[in-house]
Every structure is written in structure tokens, then in C-alpha cells.
């Protein structure tokens, strides 16, 4: 997927594949410009003017070739979306309840206004808005940030969608409110059995709520693994670098180990592996992009890296090529204090 711009063709997403199963949560983690949001917006048909190739199969139907009319039916009814900024996703002129009712009646013509309103109150109650029968007539500005995001969740879940895409749903919120909202999403998922795609840059949120994780970098998928495998047995050097650059949460305070350099430009992405210019284990082979192949011992663990997939051989290769020891070892710098 690429965008034509004044500066040239921005290659935002370059050949990524993934799947989500019903009732599961897939986390997509990556830094700014890694293509994590754009990939899901494309699925929803929200990237106008973009050059797209590939397929996005949802319940047996390819969404990328679907007609605009069909996409309007799918959006909202079958796939719900929540965005980072709840204030700009709610219309400031209309009452919150009215917006939910409108959304329900747009997709379900059978439902009467009264029924839809009752449903809206029900949904607001379900996401933990106090006194939903009264707050349903409030305007968005009368809600706090956390309440707005919960109202967005209520709206996204109104038609019981099979898939919920949450794009940085808690980034604009304070931690105590973030905890509330994440819990609401999880509860809604239990109640409705929805599949969730959670896009975030916060590895803490990933460790907290997802089943599977997709790590993206430079428009490509670097690694896919279940939550534990990613945090404890990651294969890709980028994942390793991300985890190491976090301040430790306990124990000795060491100097942080950032990934050197800058993320690649998407106008002129480096040939081969996009992470190669910053990678500590870079080899000649990295000029060629490795495939996303099974890695390690866990089933479903995929990694796009030339490093050997068996952990023993991998350590050997790492020692030969790069730094002495990977994750979890003693820091090389002095302490901060």
C-alpha cells in the first residue's frame, strides 16, 4: 500500500499479512511511521487516494475489492472502530445518545427510535457510564475524556460487530483512566465474543491485554508471536531492541540501551530488511528481505530475520556477528546516578 505525495510515493505498508480469529485480541505494535494504523485503515476503506494491492478477507469476503456501498454496510455494523482522540470522533453538536441511535438506525431500519434509544442507554450502562438514562442526553463536551472513549466503545459495539479495531484507544488518556478503558474493552469482548485488533505503541498495554502480537517496522511485519513468546523468547533483533530500550521496572537501575539511529524514510526504504541499518547483527544477507517464517519452538511464532531460528544456533550467530549477549544480560554502561 502506498500514497502518492508531493515528495514521491510513500510506501507506507509493504506486503504485510496477518489474521485474527474470532474472540481473540491481536496487538499491533510499532513506532510512528511503521504503518500500523494505515494497514487497518486500508482494510476499512478509509485511505482515499492510496494505491492498494492485496486482499483483506473478512468473513469470506474481500474488503479491498468491495463496492463503496458494501463497505458502508460493513463499517460500523460488522467492524467497529475506536480512534485515539475521542473528542474529534464524536460530533460536538449532537447529543451522545442521538449519535448512537443514528448509528443503530442507519444499519437497522427495522428498529424504532424508542427501541434504539433504549439500546443506547443499555450500551452506555454497559461501558460504565453512570446514570446512563440521564447522560444519554448529554453533549460530548459534558463527558470527560475517559467517558467519551467509553461512549465511543458503546457506539462501536452497538451493532455487535464481529471485529473491533481500536487504534491507540488509550494513548490520550491518563493511566488510571486507561486502566478503566482497557478493562471495558476486555469485558465487552467477553460479552460479545468480538475479535479485537489493538494498535498501540505501548508495550505495557500489549503485555496486559493481547493474545497475539504483530511487531511492525518500516511498513513490514517483523515478528508475530503470542504475548509470552514475544516478551520472553523474541527472535527478531528489532523486538529485542524495543524491549531493551524500556526503562526496567525494578531491580538495578542501568543505563538504557536504545536502538541507535533513526527509523527509515518510507519514501526511499532501504532495500532488504528495513531494520538492517540499525541492527546490531546485520549481515550481508540482510540486503535481501527475509520471509516471515516460523521461528523458535512455539507454533505460530513467525519472524522475518536471517538469524537462525533454533535458539542455540542463533546465539552462536549473534556472538559471531554482533554484541556479546542479547536480552536480559548485564548492561554495558555505568549507572545513571
Amino acid at each position, binding site marked *: 500500500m502506498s500514497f502518492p505525495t508531493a515528495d514521491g510515493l510513500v510506501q507506507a505498508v509493504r506486503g504485510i499479512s496477518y489474521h485474527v480469529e474470532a474472540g481473540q485480541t491481536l496487538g499491533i505494535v510499532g*513506532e*510512528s511511521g511503521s504503518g500500523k494504523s494505515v494497514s487497518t485503515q486500508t482494510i476499512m476503506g478509509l485511505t482515499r487516494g492510496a494505491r492498494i494491492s492485496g486482499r483483506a478477507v473478512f468473513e469470506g469476503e474481500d474488503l479491498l475489492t468491495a463496492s463503496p456501498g458494501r463497505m458502508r454496510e460493513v463499517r460500523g455494523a460488522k467492524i467497529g472502530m475506536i480512534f485515539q482522540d475521542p473528542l474529534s470522533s464524536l460530533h460536538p453538536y449532537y447529543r451522545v445518545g442521538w449519535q448512537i441511535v443514528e448509528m443503530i438506525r442507519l444499519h437497522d431500519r427495522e428498529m424504532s427510535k424508542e427501541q434504539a434509544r433504549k*439500546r443506547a442507554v*443499555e*450500551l452506555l*450502562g*454497559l*461501558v*460504565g457510564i*453512570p*446514570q*446512563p*438514562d440521564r447522560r444519554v442526553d448529554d453533549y460530548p463536551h459534558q463527558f*470527560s*475524556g475517559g*467517558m467519551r472513549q467509553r461512549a465511543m466503545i458503546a457506539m462501536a459495539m452497538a451493532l*455487535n460487530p464481529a471485529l473491533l479495531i481500536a487504534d491507540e484507544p488509550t494513548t490520550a488518556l*491518563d*493511566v*488510571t*483512566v*486507561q*486502566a*478503566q478503558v482497557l*478493562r*471495558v474493552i476486555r*469485558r465487552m469482548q467477553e*460479552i*460479545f465474543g468480538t475479535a479485537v485488533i489493538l494498535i498501540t*505503541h*505501548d*508495550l*505495557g*498495554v*500489549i*503485555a*496486559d491485554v493481547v493474545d497475539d502480537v504483530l511487531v511492525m517496522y518500516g511498513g513490514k511485519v517483523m515478528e508475530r508471536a503470542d*504475548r*509470552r513468546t514475544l*516478551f*520472553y523468547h523474541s527472535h527478531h533483533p528489532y523486538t529485542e*531492541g*524495543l*524491549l531493551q*530500550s*524500556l*526503562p*526496567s*521496572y*525494578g531491580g538495578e*537501575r542501568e*543505563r*538504557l*540501551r*536504545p*536502538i541507535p539511529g*533513526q*527509523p527509515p524514510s518510507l519514501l526511499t526504504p532501504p532495500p532488504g530488511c528495513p531494520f538492517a541499518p540499525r541492527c546490531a547483527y546485520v549481515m550481508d544477507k540482510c540486503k535481501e528481505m527475509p520471509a516471515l517464517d516460523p521461528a523458535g519452538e512455539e507454533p505460530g511464532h513467525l519472524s522475518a530475520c536471517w538469524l537462525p531460528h533454533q535458539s542455540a544456533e542463533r546465539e552462536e550467530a549473534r556472538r559471531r556477528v554482533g554484541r556479546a549477549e542479547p536480552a536480559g544480560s548485564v548492561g554495558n*554502561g555505568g549507572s*545513571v546516578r
Partner: protein
Amino acid sequence: MTETNAVATAGAGSGGDADVLLQVENLVKYFPVSSRGLFQEKLYVHAVEGVSLSVRRGQTFGIVGETGSGKSTLARCVARLYDITSGRVIFDGQDITKLSQRRMRPLRREIQMIFQDPIGSLNPRRRVGSIIGDPFAIHGTASGAERKRRVQELMERVGLNPEHYNRFPAEFSGGQRQRIGVARALAFQPKLIICDEPVSALDVSIQAQVINLLADLQSEFGLTYIFIAHDLSVVRHVSNTVGVMYLGKLTEVAPSEELFTVPRHPYTGALLSAVPVPDPDQSDERQQIILVGDVPSPILPPSGCRFHPRCPKAAPVCVSTDPPLEPRLGDGPQHTAACHLPMAAGENLGDFHPSIDETERIIETPSILLDGDEDGGVPGATSVGGSLSQSGEGSQS
């Protein structure tokens, strides 16, 4: 408050201790908001209310708090970017609270700020060299070739290529722009640098680069930092002492490790438990305390302890009396908390229920937020309506 503060600085007289670079006493900052009607009383945002703290030379004082807790306002008052409503700020033994703009000017070299938004704090139409050179121009200390040389030295020191002297801010990435901000702050080798969310806008891999840079500069130049952030793991990493703010007040101050391992104030405890930990095992094990509601409005803050409407341990005394910031449960003088009912080590906040009148609390529909509440979960089954008013305005009657 002043007595408490004396305790917190281990018996230092006001500003007398040579080791203390910055001393803030009972600082108050109100912002007027438009009054309700012509004859009604004027309303104020109580942004900072009676904060006292002291920062030692060469150390980092971290401030954490949620949106609207007053942490940035406090920082700007310390830098005298805002005038102070009441209280005192003593910098390097000198009371700077009432200094005129002109008398303040030489001191501005010694107190510098680094801001959150590396785009908004750099003029997009000026070249980087002239932005970093501004302090020299303004204070008239170097010009021409000499200024250029010093700017390039600074650029090199913060990890920028000195050859990029003539580039515009837009040509740099976010992390590099933050380095420009750091270079500008460093121009006069200030004594105190106030970092207001310096890494919040950066990606994690770049965040670590900037944090390391700040740490290197601190040890090289003996800098003192006030480090404001909402990311608790970052604050824990960089700070010697951490202060937690809630609605304009310091609720707890302690040496970094102590604060994170033995929090005394229930707000600190809840804040720590709410932070998602990037480790699945720890994440599964921990007992998360989910606070109800949002932070009340600072225009009409709650009475007594400002946290009482959301506190799981709230008791009648918390509604009536504002607890002083002092050592609790036998803590040393460095660890102070403003709480009547501090937490003991290993105590689980989830076991407590507030014993105050419900009108004093923020009530939320609890069903969705409670674990183990498996009532069938059919949409609309039992959506318990919160029976009492919850408005963002706090709960003063």
C-alpha cells in the same frame, strides 16, 4: 506546610543549606476563570495549592501526576514564567519570588526549560544554528564566528552533526529536534534544567537515546533536573526523589525506589497498579486497583484530602481535614505522604471500602469494572445505574 518542609529537607533552614539548589515554600498559583454572572464571586482554577519541596544540587527531582494535577504549572512558576499567587521560591540561596523582570534576567541563564513538543518549541522558519545561538545573542555573550563555534560545540555535544548548522527544524526527526531543545537549554551551562515531559512525544527507541543524553549531561556538567512526566517508569529511571501530584497538591514525596516499592498514599498505590507493565508474568500477577471516576475539577476542588472522592480508604476525617505532608508509619524524614490512613507495606487497596457518606464520593456503575462479576453478561442484563450524582465538578455541596 512550612514545618513539614523543614522536616523534608532534613532540618535545613529556609534556603540555608548549601546543598539545596531550589527551595519552594507553600507555593500557590490560581488562574482566574470568568465568573458566573455579574454579581457572583470570581472563580479560580486552583492549579497549584501550597506545594513545598526542595531540590538538591546534582540530583533529579521527578514529578508525576495526571492531566490537570498542576505539575507543569508548578514548573513554570519555579522558572518564573508565571507570576506566583503566594508562597516563595528560593533559588541558589536567593529569593526570586518577587524579582522584577530585569533583575530576573541574569538568573534566567541558570534556570532553563526543555519542553514536550519538539516541533512547537522551535521556530520553523529559523535555522537550527540561530535557534541554538539565541541565548548567546540575547545575553550578548558571543557573536559572529565565536557564536558559531560555540553553537557547533553544543550540537556536537548533544549528538547532532555540527554540519547541519544551517538546516531548518523540519529537516530533523523528533528525537533530533528534542536534542536541539537540549542544546539550546545547555547554552549557558545552567544550574537547573526543568524538563517538562521531554520524552513523551518520542518513540520508545528514541526516548531511551534522549534519556541517556540527559543522564550524560548531568554527570558531565553537574546539572540539577526537575523532571516532569506522566510515564512512571521513565520517572523512576531518572529520578533520585519523586513527588506525586494530585489536583494541585503534593500527595507523596520519597526517594525514587522507596516510592515505587512502598507507596504510602493510596493514590500513589493506585497509580502504580494502573501502569501497564511490559512483562506478561508481572502483568498477570499484579492486583490492579481501578479507581472510579475522573479527576475532579480544580475550580471547586473537594474538601479535606482532595483524593477522598475516589479513594478506597476514605474515612470521615478525609472529608473534613486536609492531611499534612509528613512522614508516616515510621518512615524517614525523606519519605512524606499527605494521608490520614497511609498504606502499610504489602497492603491491598482492593480490600478496602470507603466509610464516608456516598454524597461525598464519585459513584460509577461498578459492574463492568469489577472482576469476577459474571452475571451472564447479556447486553442490558443488569446495568446498575449509579444512583448518585457524578459530575466532573467534584462533589462539594
